[in-house]
């Protein structure tokens, strides 16, 4: 059949007449049927194809927990005392919507010359992508990358000893400012490993970029809850313990 087709392509006009005669001749027709191969054509119905998975699957579980890193760093001598709770909403095994909320208490200084204090609350919200979602055997762990948007609401105060100058005698300075805000962006990732039934642990690391702070008058913002010292670029570490609650399957 392939040979007939190829010959026809080259010599279409004369051969076409011959072929017509072949088909009209019973004998020739018998001979042509012997050389014709029957090809089965299967028409695939679109409905039989596997449906594409939606970009965002339905939520399958939620995780709640705490970040152990802030209290550990406080024990190790950090000026920040923070307590943070975390929540994660798992969309399938691919995307995780994450949120953190915490309270912060900051105290810095050398006691004799000055004391800087800050108190406030903060929250973060972001999205993570699980790099191991395609691994069907990998249901016990996640390696995620993602981002966080952070927002802090706080107040601060400074008490210090002012030295005598040409204009003023030695004095005790006392500055306070409230209703302060700061926002920042974090980029990084985390590891979630199943410890035992529904309990997950794992570290996290993020690079943080300050986006903006509220303008202050007399006292510059020195430390920001959840962000740290008021620098343009910082790094944040975390160690999370989370309990997973799966949606009940209908």
């Amino acid at each position, binding site marked *: 059949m392939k040979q007939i087709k190829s010959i026809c392509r080259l010599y279409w006009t004369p051969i076409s007449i011959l072929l017509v005669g072949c088909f009209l001749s019973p004998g020739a027709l018998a001979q042509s049927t012997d050389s014709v191969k029957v090809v089965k054509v299967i028409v695939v119905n679109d409905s039989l194809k596997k449906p594409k998975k939606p970009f965002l699957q339905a939520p399958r579980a939620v995780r709640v927990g705490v970040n152990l890193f802030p209290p*550990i760093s406080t024990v190790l001598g950090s000026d920040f005392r923070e307590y943070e709770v975390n929540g994660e909403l798992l969309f399938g095994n691919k995307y995780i919507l994450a949120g953190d909320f915490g309270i912060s208490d900051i105290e810095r200084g050398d006691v004799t010359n*000055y004391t800087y204090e800050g108190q406030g609350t903060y929250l973060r919200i972001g999205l993570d992508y699980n790099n191991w979602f395609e691994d069907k055997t990998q249901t016990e*762990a996640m390696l995620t990358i993602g981002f966080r948007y952070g927002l802090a609401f706080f107040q601060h105060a400074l008490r210090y000893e002012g030295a005598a100058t040409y*204009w003023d005698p030695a004095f005790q300075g006392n500055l306070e400012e409230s209703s302060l805000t700061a926002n920042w962006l974090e980029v990084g990732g985390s590891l979630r490993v199943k410890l035992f039934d529904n309990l997950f642990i794992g570290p996290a690391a993020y690079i943080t970029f300050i986006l903006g702070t509220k303008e202050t008058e007399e006292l*510059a913002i*020195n430390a920001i809850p959840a962000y740290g010292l008021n620098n343009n670029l910082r790094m944040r570490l975390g160690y999370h313990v989370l309990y997973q609650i799966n949606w009940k399957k209908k």
Partner: protein
Amino acid sequence: MRNFLLFCFYSSPSSSLILSSVLLLGLVSCQENCTEDPNANLINLEFIARDDGEVLSLAVDVQGLDFTTGQPLDSLLFSQADTLSSFQLPISSLRDTVTFRFQGVITGAANPTLNEQLTLVYDRQVNIIEPECGVSESIFNLRNDTLSTTFPINDVMIVLNSLVNETNQVNLQIILDAN
């Protein structure tokens, strides 16, 4: 790498906690240096000649005026016994304005008697760099209070409106008719 991490966490979850603590210790040990001098609170003033723009060396009394009474303070900042080409004027950490009086004789000037008053206004903000560096004060947005200053307005020029601790950096220039 992935299997190694999983092995660490499955076999010893505390190892990751220890690793994190080590990283934290590394961060805690990294401290900033005191790169800024916390005492940048002096206004660097120069007098320049009107005709050629050269810096003048003057022997004048410079004295601060009390904020409330307007009377001269007891002590002189500079006296006529010293001939100086630049004057470092202190600011106040408790107020946003300072006033100075300049008295003396200017050699070679058409009007040799100098008896003028200069009032400067500024913004200040307290900051903390590091615990070892202590509290520092930033002075910025320095400007001339034209209502109180007796020097001609156009003769007082703000060169740099923030205070830095560099002796060669001039903040303020005043033009005088002198040689």
